[in-house]
């Protein structure tokens, strides 16, 4: 066996997942700084910061703090954040078949670190390899990398990284990041149809709060995906 073959043999899916996530980490920096800036101005910054680990969803954490800062009720803050987090149930359901036979601690780790980027990356990986164990390790590599880096960005934002986060162009980083992750799905009909249905729903529901709009778009996408899966081609 040549030395190149040896290197290929030794490539770890865990390390591949971690490496694949590095460009996404750059994209998460301004978002993390923005969340950190909101955490710092919260009436209870320590609790808000702890939410970085426990909620582990930047958009939900930001929405929660914004609603409270604007004088909204506790219920409104919780519902808004939970509507945004509801998409995690969809991601978890899509991952479930791959993790059915995994040990409990592996499933717990996969669940606790689940968010948009590792999920989308693991779906991209699913199209490349049929080996379930390899896909699981790839997912964990991606998920653990982001899980370790995200609190660092938020903490840096608390300590004064708001200048970068408040640049208007920083607001485009998240759409570009998510767009890049979704794009490979658009090449196939079963990904393109739900995406188009969701895009139309998002335009129509633009005046709504993010949580309800994303939840409805996700439901419309599910209906479209079911229709595409049922159709003969």
């Amino acid at each position, binding site marked *: 066996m040549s030395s190149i073959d040896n290197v290929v043999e030794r490539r770890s899916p865990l390390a591949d997942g971690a490496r694949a996530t590095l460009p996404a980490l750059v994209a998460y920096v301004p978002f993390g700084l923005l969340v950190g800036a909101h955490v710092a101005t919260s009436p209870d910054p320590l609790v808000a910061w702890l939410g970085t680990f426990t909620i582990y969803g930047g958009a939900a954490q930001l929405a929660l703090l914004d609603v409270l800062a604007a004088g909204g009720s506790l219920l409104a803050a919780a519902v808004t954040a939970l509507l945004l987090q509801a998409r995690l149930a969809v991601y978890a359901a899509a991952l479930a078949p791959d993790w059915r036979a995994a040990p409990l601690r592996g499933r717990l780790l996969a669940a606790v670190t689940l968010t948009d980027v590792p999920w989308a990356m693991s779906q991209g990986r699913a199209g490349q390899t049929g080996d379930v164990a390899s896909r699981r390790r790839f997912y964990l590599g991606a998920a653990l990398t982001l899980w370790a880096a995200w609190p660092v960005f938020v903490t840096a934002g608390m300590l004064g990284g708001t200048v970068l986060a408040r640049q208007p162009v920083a607001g485009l980083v998240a759409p570009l990041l998510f767009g890049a992750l979704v794009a490979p799905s658009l090449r196939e009909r079963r990904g393109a149809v739900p995406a188009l249905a969701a895009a139309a729903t998002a335009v129509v529901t633009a005046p709504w709060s993010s949580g309800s709009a994303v939840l409805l*778009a*996700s439901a419309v996408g599910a209906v479209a995906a079911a229709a595409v899966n049922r159709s003969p081609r």
Partner: protein
Amino acid sequence: MSTLAVVLAVTAGSLAFRLVPLLGLVAVPERAARVARGAGVAAMTAMVVRGVLEHRDPGVPGAGWIAVAAVAVGLAAAIRGRSLSVVLLWGLASYGVLASAVRLLT
């Protein structure tokens, strides 16, 4: 105290969303998982669209349309199989160039 109550509630809900399907507390057949994949793509697409629609740049007239163009450039690169770094670079650079051009012309 109020922040603590909300953070605890959202933490509990987020954990339930993540844990229930992955721990097998509800059965997820392959067909449902395929539909969930479509719903996941839909959720991320909706966040892309909302991110663009919510874009504001007080110093640039027509910033919303420039954001649409910049994200379209990034998406085109992504669909052609470019890496995540290239997609981000092209999208942000497009916004920078277009926004500067509009500022100069107005």
